[in-house]
């Protein structure tokens, strides 16, 4: 089984936000929630870089570790998913997540947040693959159809890569070697405790 990861090559990202839009559309993400976002570092200064960021599907995920009801699970492809049936909306995963991935649909009284929502790596949830229930609660399950997450699949500059960690790391390495520079595999050290030696 593959160890699925995301890799954003910030030297290629042109901040078009198509990944954000594709994600919202494919997964029919609720209003106010962005499972993916593009953050521009050093905006307007020489050497600015834009990074597309979502849940990184961490190794030893902090969200899963702090969840009081143990609603997270890791699939065979190392994708970190959660059950909205079990989530109580306490907010701890958001405090623990290094990438700000978990989000909540409500900001009601007394901290009522509703069920947490985050990037599923287009892999749905605990319900049976590609059922109506799964689609309504979690969005698409492209992985079950043999496809990769839509954000990466339709990235126009192929800045955002999704797939097996070793393969996308290899692609990134080749790019860096060929062009002679690279600003790093953003988030990898924090998420996977490793970085790509280039």
């Amino acid at each position: 089984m593959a160890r699925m990861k995301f890799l954003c090559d910030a030297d290629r990202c042109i901040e078009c936000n198509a990944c954000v839009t594709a994600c919202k559309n494919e997964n029919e993400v609720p209003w106010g929630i962005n499972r993916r976002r593009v953050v521009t570092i050093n905006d307007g200064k020489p050497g600015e870089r834009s990074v597309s960021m979502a849940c990184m599907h961490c190794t030893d995920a902090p969200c899963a570790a702090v969840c009081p009801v143990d609603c997270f699970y890791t699939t065979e492809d190392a994708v970190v998913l959660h059950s909205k049936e079990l989530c109580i909306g306490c907010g701890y995963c958001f405090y623990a997540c290094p990438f700000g991935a978990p989000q909540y649909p409500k900001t009601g009284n007394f901290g009522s947040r509703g069920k947490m929502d985050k990037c599923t790596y287009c892999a749905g949830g605990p319900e049976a693959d590609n059922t109506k229930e799964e689609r309504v609660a979690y969005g698409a399950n492209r992985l079950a159809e043999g496809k990769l997450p839509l954000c990466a699949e339709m990235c126009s500059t192929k800045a955002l890569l999704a797939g097996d960690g070793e393969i996308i790391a290899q692609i990134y390495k080749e790019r860096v070697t060929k062009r002679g520079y690279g600003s790093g595999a953003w988030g990898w050290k924090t998420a996977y405790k490793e970085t790509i030696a280039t």
Partner: protein
Amino acid sequence: MAFVTIRRAAAAAVIAVLCAVAHPSAATAQGSVNPTASSVKEQQLLDALKPDQRLSGRVSIPDPGASSLIQPEGRQFRAERDQNARIGGLAILGMLGLLVLFYVVRGKVRMDGGRSGTTITRFGFVERFTHWLTAVSFLLLGLTGLNITFGRALVLPLIGPQAFTSLSQAGKFVHIYVSFAFALGILLMFLLWVKDNLPALRDIRWFLQGGGLIGLGHPPADRFNAGQKLIFWSVVLGGGAIAVTGYILMFPFAWTDIAGMQWASVWHGLIGAVLFAVILAHIYIGSVGMEGAIDAMGSGEVDVNWAKEHHSIWTERELGKAGKGAAPAE
């Protein structure tokens, strides 16, 4: 026709001028632009971060929170939470162990003189109401709070994920709504009893004599002895801190950012667990641990012998007042 030709010539001239102007700078830039040197590097940015700082930039999404790219202190929050669970668990289990040991070794603290049969009013209705308002709400908050920290390890395996979620969800609502009763109780308690809980010199002697629990005789005490003062200040200060951090958590991001939310969550859990351990000792000494103690918060009337042993100064003053009132005027 001629007009078009002129326009073309003009355009060509403009382009030629532009090229001529742009060319020298382009030529120099060719050699000097170094995308590696000028681009921001993740590792450099992470190294430059101070504790509690986040790596953030600009987003086009109208949500300022989304501009945070990486917040490494998320892992710190997790580590602190784990550590709190260990400290809290140890405090509670340690206290239970100590209390069982104390009961086995010392047994129930009896009244030396036995019951006298006459009683004296120790707590009025308002005082008892305040005590039980705080006590019941604290127990509900404590149990539902401990469930959030320890339920996953202790309760979830027993009842299964679906039932545990229902329990925790209900517990969360109980925790939220009962908190108002608790906060009111803490406030009332402070107003009612602060004047009797100010530290006094005799408190030192009380501690040196082990509070009369270890056979060195009963040290004199006013309305509240030093042990009770300790409980009072633990409850007022600890409970106050729990209430403040709790309300920060209840209204997420209303007053603070994510670092503040993490801070509130960590301290809320730690103080809560430690206060729970302290209260276990209070429950013990007020019930099975000491003969006659429960009456103070039950009927509010305590046996005079009990009062003389544990609150000698207060008892004398109260009896003196009663004596004066009852004595016929001469």
